């Protein structure tokens, strides 16, 4: 069966989309711009921030990272333990950047649709784990 020539460009467009997707940046903590790295957590002094962040975590992150942030192996991929030294040593700005941009190639989605204060609350929770 002959493939109609007029459909070829749909296939081409799809392949271009895939190629662009593969060309993106998959790095995360070591790719954080300096300006983002040094951002302070604006809700750091809020005593409720970590508890609120824990609520956000339970609803959105626990399915992958575990209820106690202990990490998981899912579909052959390791979802990181958030008690790790890497998270402990990361600055609040770095964690905020990661939540905003995600690490799409590695399966970490972007949470940019959460308002900024909510993402900072989540950063407070992650820091409270250490």
């Amino acid at each position: 069966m002959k493939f109609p020539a007029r459909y070829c460009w749909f296939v081409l467009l799809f392949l271009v989309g895939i190629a662009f997707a593969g060309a993106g940046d998959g790095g995360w903590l070591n790719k954080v711009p300096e300006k983002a790295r040094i951002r302070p957590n604006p809700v750091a002094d809020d005593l409720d921030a970590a508890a609120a962040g824990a609520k956000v975590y339970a609803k959105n992150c626990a399915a992958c990272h575990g209820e106690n942030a202990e990490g998981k192996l899912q579909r052959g991929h390791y979802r990181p333990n958030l008690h790790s030294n890497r998270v402990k040593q990361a600055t609040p700005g770095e964690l905020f950047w990661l939540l905003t941009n995600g690490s799409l190639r590695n399966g970490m989605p972007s949470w940019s649709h959460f308002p900024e204060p909510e993402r900072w609350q989540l950063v407070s929770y992650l820091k409270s784990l250490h």
Partner: protein
Amino acid sequence: MQIMRSHTIPGIKFCLRLAAVLTFVLMLQTSLCAQENYFVTYSHQLEEPGNLEIAAKSITGAPKGGNPFVATALEFEYGINGWWTAELYLDGQTTFNESTLFTGFRIENRIRPFMREHWINPVLYFEFEDLNSADKALLEVVGHDTNEDLAGRNSRAEKEREVELKLILSSNFKGWNVSENFIAEKNLGPSSWEFGYAVGTSRPLALKVSPRACNFCRENFALGAEMYGGLGERHSFGLSETSHYFGPIVTWDIPAGPSVQISPNFGLNRNSSGFLLRFMLTYEIDQFVSKLRGEQ
């Protein structure tokens, strides 16, 4: 009578299958985290990898010169990975004093070409749809779609096998999402390209989450609005003989439950239906495949 029977029996089977699927869904732990903000407009927010979102997008109206109808698109959205989301839609409708019909399916893919967040975030959208002329789900308005498409008598005579491309542009800023979609659709038969648009904006009522558990906190509600319509065809591009709609949107994310959205839509010109009511119920199953495999 013969016609009524032939429509009713598949309808019952479809409902039983739907009930079985929904029962299965309710047995799984569900949550909500990635629901779309709009009915027609897409933002750059994709489904989380491994999650399955099941949504019933419904619309009801009483078009001028036709019978009242209720149409539903049952949506299954799966996050293949961080930059690629695939969806299957099953469309059906009931037109009062006429019949209940399964009207076809749509398969779509959304791909994020850039791996980082930008001021404006593009997403490429590809869809194939195999619908018949009775479809009234109105998931987009293109070309010279008008009120007459909703008012016509139910008929599956005309098949519409179409491809649809969208350029989705979306930004998040200080809690607001602003999204713009440019739509191009083509019937695989001999017909010209049709164009349309959809724009939307939304914002949660609270930008911070409260530490206590609650169903009616402001953080669980979002308000928004969207506008969509046709832009004519390749040889008649423009606003002439096109229809346009505008509607506010209210979203309620019930903690540990579904998300509920409602949007009254108002036709903006004489080619549009005067009033349409949209409502949507969304469940999200976290890590669907892992749960099927029994992974912890």
